[in-house]
């Protein structure tokens, strides 16, 4: 085992986080700003980022708290938005099997869309990458920047220039990972169907952010079906 510190794969993980931060920083600022606008204190805003650490669900919760929604609605909405991470947990779990329970709990705590997608893509591309250090490099870089960003947003409380559309960097990150993930007929079918269903669900207005899990499950089923068909 490589005993150098910092481990080169930790640095590699931190390095690949760079471009993602373009999308994360404005997102974190917005989370802090909207918490402040809803009347939450700086400590509450940062506390939410530390304990929840999931942007979309935080924004939804803040929005509902701001409109004085019932407690149960706020909690249920935020949790349902995070149900998609069940899929990430299942997908990345085989790579983490060798680690102790305590380490796995820590890795689970920093599991996000970005850390999941970047790590699994890299594990497949480069099998001798150190899984623990690489994932840690991404996961904790995002964690630190998310905390600092919400803190800054909550303190500033003012607007980020919206016309810049910096939040568009996030879908571009996902797109950069999606293209190589479509590596054969099955995975390409899964992507096309999931994208189409996601778009349809957005138009139909599926409540409680269930669009994503529904679209993903349809895509996965389509991929499985196409490959099963060919192998008959």
């Amino acid at each position: 085992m490589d005993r150098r510190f910092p481990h080169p794969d930790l640095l590699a993980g931190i390095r690949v986080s760079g471009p993602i931060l373009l999308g994360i920083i404005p997102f974190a600022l917005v989370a802090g700003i909207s918490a402040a606008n809803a009347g939450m204190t700086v400590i509450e805003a940062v506390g939410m980022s530390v304990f929840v650490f999931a942007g979309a669900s935080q924004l939804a919760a803040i929005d509902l708290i701001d409109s004085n929604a019932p407690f149960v609605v706020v909690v249920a909405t935020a949790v349902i938005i995070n149900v998609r991470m069940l899929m990430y947990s299942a997908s990345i779990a085989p790579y983490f099997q060798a680690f102790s329970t305590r380490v796995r709990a820590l890795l689970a705590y920093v599991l996000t869309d970005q850390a999941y997608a970047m790590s699994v893509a890299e594990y497949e591309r480069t099998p001798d990458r150190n899984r623990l250090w690489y994932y840690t490099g991404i996961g904790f870089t995002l964690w630190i920047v998310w905390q600092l960003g919400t803190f800054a947003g909550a303190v500033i409380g003012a607007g980020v220039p919206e016309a810049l559309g910096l939040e568009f960097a996030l879908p571009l990150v996902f797109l950069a990972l999606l293209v190589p993930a479509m590596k054969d007929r099955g995975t390409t079918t899964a992507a096309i169907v999931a994208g189409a269903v996601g778009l349809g669900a957005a138009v139909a207005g599926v409540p409680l952010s269930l669009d994503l899990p529904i679209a993903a499950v349809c895509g996965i089923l389509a991929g499985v079906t196409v490959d099963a068909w060919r192998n008959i």
Partner: protein
Amino acid sequence: MEEHMTTWSSTAIWAAIGVIGLCTFAIRLSFIYLFGRIDTVPDRVEHVLRYVPAAVLAALVIPAVITIQPTIEATLVDDRVAAAIVAGVVAWRTEDVFATIALGMGTLWAIRFGPSLLGL
């Protein structure tokens, strides 16, 4: 004690943060914990899992890029769609995340701000 614009008390806010945080952590830990307890991931499960990245990523990207408008033309003539097409080609040719973002955002800004910068 600071005043809230929401009528929620500080206690209620912290309670919501605590419950959401615990549930979210349980979701994240679920399979990472379970698969550590069993020796191998069942073949059938692994077979299904190989489609997860493509499906999830597409479900995140497409609705963020495309907004359905009344006509096909209005739907497709959009700065985000144009930027995503450029970014998609870059991703396909280079598989480089930074290049994809740089050229994608560059395209978006060129379309949004280019004409006024050129005095058009």
